[in-house]
């Protein structure tokens, strides 16, 4: 069972301010989806390694060289609010 409190907790972890009827609707949806996903619980995976990537990938290293990159003004061009060449956000520290 997923309670309303669980849904609000997951919403908070997801940084989504769920409101009104959406809380109940999403809790119903999650319940039905998790009910389906739970079929995995019947699978014996005690001797199986987890697969995060399907290719035999290795970490990719590169030389520590300075190369052209996105200039600051371009990187900031889509910012909602900017100040002194940086992204500006609501006040964090009083």
């Amino acid at each position: 069972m997923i309670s309303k409190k669980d849904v609000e907790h997951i919403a908070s972890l997801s940084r989504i301010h769920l409101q009104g009827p959406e809380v109940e609707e999403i809790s119903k949806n999650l319940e039905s989806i998790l009910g389906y996903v739970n079929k995995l619980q019947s699978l014996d995976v005690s001797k199986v390694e987890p697969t995060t990537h399907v290719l035999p990938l290795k970490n990719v290293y590169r030389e520590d060289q300075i190369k052209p990159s996105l200039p600051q003004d371009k990187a900031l061009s889509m910012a909602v609010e900017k100040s002194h060449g940086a992204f500006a956000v609501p006040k964090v520290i009083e």
Partner: protein
Amino acid sequence: MNLNELTAHEIADLLKQKKTTAKEVYTDTLRHIEKNDGRVKAFVNFSPKTIDPSNDLTALPIPMAIKDNMCIEGEEVTCCSKILKGFKPAYNATVIEKLKKNNAIFIGHTNMDEFAMGSSTENSCYGPSHNPWNLDCVPGGSSGGSTAAVASNEAIWALGSDTGGSIRQPAAFCGIVGLKPTYGLVSRYGLIAFASSLDQIGPLTKDVTDCALLLNIIAGYDPMDSTSANLPKVDYTQALKNDVKGLKIGVPKEYFIEGLDKEVKEAVTQSIKVLEKAGAHFEEVSLPHTEYGVATYYIVATAEASSNLARYDGVQYGLRKMPGQTRKTPLVDMYEETRDLGFGKEVKRRIMLGTYSLSSGYYDAYYLKGLKARHLIKQDFDKVFEKYDAIITPTAPTTAFKIGEKSNDPLAMYLSDIYTISANLAGIPAISIPCGFSKNKMPIGLQLMAKPFAEDMLLRIAYTYEQNTSWHKEKVKL
């Protein structure tokens, strides 16, 4: 005949013979879009281009559509989400760079399910696209705008992206060719991420020859994508041979089960006969963990999505909503209200499902279990490909469904991807090609899968099938 009804290779031939110009092709295409896109709604934005006539003989100046999740410098790209409205990227995706070198003409971006999360293109902040074969039906998804554009001749060819079937299922629903390449074959740099270990960009075309041509352009190693495979360049047009003699193709019994539409099953059975006549051998095989595919996918994909979509927080770009009053702190309130306003229902659902399976207390039971199930699914394919050159299945269990039919039942929608999801989990290449029509004249898709980097095998079988049938010549009448 209007030029926009041709394939890219037919246009390339006419250009070479100086029987047409890129400008004429582009003009025909735009005229056609103006007449029809009000009903199909394939495109979400247009970006008019001036055509340089000196390109006509040098490369492939083909008017094409790009799914709304690939970055073109200075052109709005939104993933069909309110949270990215107005976003104009400062750089090109690698696939766009490669296409530009071939003088591709980008008509505009096409509709999709928000952040590629969906199977019908109904989860778009712009509203749904319509299937050109029957405007009351969905085009499939999530690359439904791109497939509808190609099927309705509003683009000569297009790019889509495929995380759990988002190229192949809409290609099947719209009666065109769609290829999901092996994970790592096509660079993901500049593709707005949904689930990074599953996402691949791929071609959507009117026939198999065009598929090989477009794959030739977009495939290849890219240092900007750390998961890009560094392998020698292949010319995929070399695989276009009408010859499947002696090939061994597996028919997985787990794919021919309850829920598979009779007409789809019959079309696939007939397709097998066509290829058998051409010299291929078919045997029943087993992929025993097939039934866990959808469940595994919705754990792995949503977990990755919950992390990837954390970047939409109202700080660097996109939407920002300032909170009315302080609940937590002004900054956290801004994040939470921006995301609540900017994301649609399905995206919120998936972010929350992913957050849940990664959260303390549930990680082992869900996420870790999902990764282990993924291992078993991949192993199933490895075993079959030890003995077989390819696997043949339906692309989707039904033909295109009606708009609105499944939009209130997320689980029913997820199950429409039941045959396509495993290829993403296993990282293998898979193609959907037209293989018939239902009584209602809705297209049916045939799926072929092969081992990693065996795109040439898929193209060879698909090409042989195409040469021995005429489904790909059936045209939409709008």
